[in-house]
């Protein structure tokens, strides 16, 4: 295998390691949320440091790769994509940490009725699915797969858009649960962010494989 | 007529004159060759090639002359080439840019310009008198060797110079010594060029008469030389001798002998040209 491919592979592997780490943060975040598990949340928060060091490491590796290999064409796009996916992953990690901090403040699990009303679990599962599918798309270098992921984001947005009305209604009925409701609203917002970030990552995969810029396109269509 | 038209006319005129000059030498040469062939070719037969010289033109042959020429060729080659090639190698591969090597170069250029008859005088004094050899083949070959030595040296140097520096570097870098590099790389690579020069030098030696006359090669040698210590004559001397006689029959003999001499000369030159051509084709650095 050519030297440049060896180096590129190392870079991808490093990114996937980070991916797994963030995956763990997200997945455990769901359990922690459902069970109001403070201990698990603390662990997620601590992992953030590790994710950050991955972020720096991968940034440095990309910098070296640019400096030493002066990549062009597909190699150039690959490294650019890795660099951006790295940033997005780090942010998803941040988001997971943020959710965990909310969980830490809970003294009991969310009211199942509220959970049911807001469809937060559905949203969480959808976000997790997107995140994992995106990893698969990256591993397989599959832009079609990545395009489907972008579509999945719509479901998240739908739930997110309804969530404030749903929660407001619920809080009117249950004023004693205001902190709980607000925490959930924040978590839903964060999950929406995760969806957006995964969408960005998918767009990077498309850019890397097909050299097409797909981001910001949907917004244009909307304007039309 | 304008100035520019005049200029163009002059230009054309010179072009015609150029073609004329280029061909005049060749035309004269052609006339001459045809003349010689017409005069001499009928005289060439087996007897002419295998007869001893004679006072009677019709019975005279060139056996001793061409045998002598052959002897001289081989002997001069044996003497001059090792010396000349070795000297060429030294000057091109070993000599540092010192005053001495500079002097050596000027000296060789000078030797190349010394008239052949002076070499004759050198041979006469050095080989015939001092070494007391007399006018024998060995003395003649030694004299001609000295004569062609500068040519061999110069062409050897040219051929060696054509071998790129990188080949030597490649060899040195593999741990080869100077001589190993010369022997295994430089000489094989320049062999064609050296051989070409060597053959051209030989063709020069074949045509030389003056130095051999001076050292006392005889025109009339009634036997074929059997060893380097025998007396001898060569084709050019035989031709000179016949040309200086008043009888027309001897001129015919001379023309016939010239055909043989030219054949030998052209053959040698042809081989040289062929080798050079092949060499150029074979190796493109």
């Amino acid at each position, binding site marked *: 295998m050519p030297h440049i491919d060896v180096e590129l592979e190392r870079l991808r592997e490093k990114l996937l390691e980070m991916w797994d780490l963030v995956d763990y943060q997200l997945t455990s975040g769901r359990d922690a949320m459902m069970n109001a598990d403070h201990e698990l949340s603390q662990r997620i928060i601590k992992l953030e440091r590790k994710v950050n060091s991955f972020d720096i490491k991968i940034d440095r590796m990309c910098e070296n790769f640019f400096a030493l290999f002066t990549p062009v064409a597909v190699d150039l796009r690959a490294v650019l994509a890795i660099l951006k996916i790295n940033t997005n992953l780090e942010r998803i990690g941040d988001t997971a940490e943020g959710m965990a901090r909310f969980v830490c403040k809970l003294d009991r699990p969310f009211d199942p009725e509220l959970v049911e009303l807001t469809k937060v679990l559905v949203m969480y599962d959808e976000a997790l699915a997107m995140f994992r599918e995106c990893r698969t798309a990256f591993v397989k270098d599959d832009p079609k797969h990545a395009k489907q992921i972008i579509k999945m984001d719509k479901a998240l947005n739908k739930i997110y858009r309804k969530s404030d009305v749903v929660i407001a209604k619920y809080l009117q009925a249950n004023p004693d649960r205001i902190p709980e409701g607000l925490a959930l609203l924040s978590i839903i917002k964060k999950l929406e962010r995760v969806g957006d970030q995964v969408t960005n990552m998918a767009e990077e995969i498309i850019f890397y494989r097909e050299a097409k810029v797909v981001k910001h396109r949907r917004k244009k269509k909307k304007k039309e | 007529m304008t100035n520019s038209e005049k200029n163009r006319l002059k230009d054309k005129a010179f072009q015609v004159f150029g073609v004329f000059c280029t061909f005049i030498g060749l035309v004269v040469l052609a006339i001459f060759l045809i003349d010689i062939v017409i005069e001499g070719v009928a005289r060439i037969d087996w007897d002419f090639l295998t007869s001893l010289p004679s006072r009677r033109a019709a019975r005279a042959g060139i056996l001793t002359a061409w045998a002598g020429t052959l002897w001289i060729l081989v002997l001069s080659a044996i003497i001059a080439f090792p010396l000349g090639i070795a000297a060429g190698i030294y000057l091109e591969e070993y000599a540092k840019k010192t005053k001495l090597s500079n002097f050596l170069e000027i000296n060789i250029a000078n030797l190349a310009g010394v008239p052949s008859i002076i070499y004759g*005088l050198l041979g006469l004094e050095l080989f015939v008198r001092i070494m007391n050899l007399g006018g024998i083949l060995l003395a003649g070959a030694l004299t001609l060797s000295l004569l062609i030595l*500068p040519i061999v040296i110069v062409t050897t140097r040219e051929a060696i110079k054509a071998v790129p520096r990188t080949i030597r570097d490649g060899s040195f870098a593999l741990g080869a010594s100077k001589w190993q590099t010369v022997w295994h790389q430089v000489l094989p690579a320049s062999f064609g060029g050296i051989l070409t020069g060597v053959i051209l030098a030989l063709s020069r030696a074949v045509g030389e*008469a003056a130095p051999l006359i001076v050292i006392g090669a005889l025109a009339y040698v009634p036997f074929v030389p059997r060893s380097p210590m025998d007396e001898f004559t060569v084709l050019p001397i035989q031709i000179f001798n016949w*040309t*200086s006689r008043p009888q027309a029959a001897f001129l015919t003999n001379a023309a016939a002998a*010239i055909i043989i001499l030219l054949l030998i000369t052209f053959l040698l030159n042809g081989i040289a040209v062929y080798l050079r051509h092949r060499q150029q084709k074979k190796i493109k650095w």
Partner: protein
Amino acid sequence: MRVQEKIIEGLLWLSAAITILITVSIIWVLLSESVKFFSEVSIVRFLTEKEWTPLFAEKKFGIMPLVAGTFLTTVIAIAVALPIGLTIAIYLNEYAHARFKTFIKPLLEVLATIPTVVYGFFALTVVTPFLQSFIPGLAGFNALSAGIVMGIMIIPMISSLSEDAISAVPRSLREAAYGMGSTRLQTAFGVMVPAASSGILVSVILAISRAVGETMIVAIAAGQQPRLTLNPLVPIETITTYIVQVSLGDVPHGSLEYRTIFAAGMTLFVFTFLLNNLSFWIKKKYQEKYD
């Protein structure tokens, strides 16, 4: 192995050094015999007497007739070879196609490879009778036909050396001349020839040196009668011819006659040596100019 290398280098050095030995021998041989000659014949007589008759009963030792003969044949040869050779050089460089050039150059070289004894035969049996048909006073042996044939022989020498010199002139010069609207002829004589003049001069000097030392043509066609003349129509004798003439005869070693050929050889050697070194000197200066 190191010792072996040293031995080989030593042997190679020795081969190169032999060339110096040759030069030394030439000078020594010529000098030692000449010195003996000049101890019997004063150098003043040698240079001023107007006759050269060392083989006669009444001996005279004036080298001038031989020098005159040599000079005469050389001048005729150069007069033939220089215009033709230079024209060929210019023509091949400025006018001829590259393919014609590669075809014609080896053919011209053939002229230089023909043995001189053959040229002598040519001069005597073809050129002289031909010239006699319209120059009534022409003797059977004469400087004219020998000189002309010698000239033909040295054409390739002048043409190829001059051509090298002309093609060594930087392209930019030629392009500058064409750029100003010069014809090829004007470019050749106005720019190229002057720029290459030293190289052309070198070729002419070397050609002169060659002509001075040429032996067999003059020995066959120019005669063996030393006379102080510049008339090309009568028999003369050159230095080289004299040496051949004596060598063909039976002159005892150690006699004054024997030594005359070394004195004559010395004269010849001095001429060619000076000419050759003059050409080297010019060549060296010329190279420095363009490097």
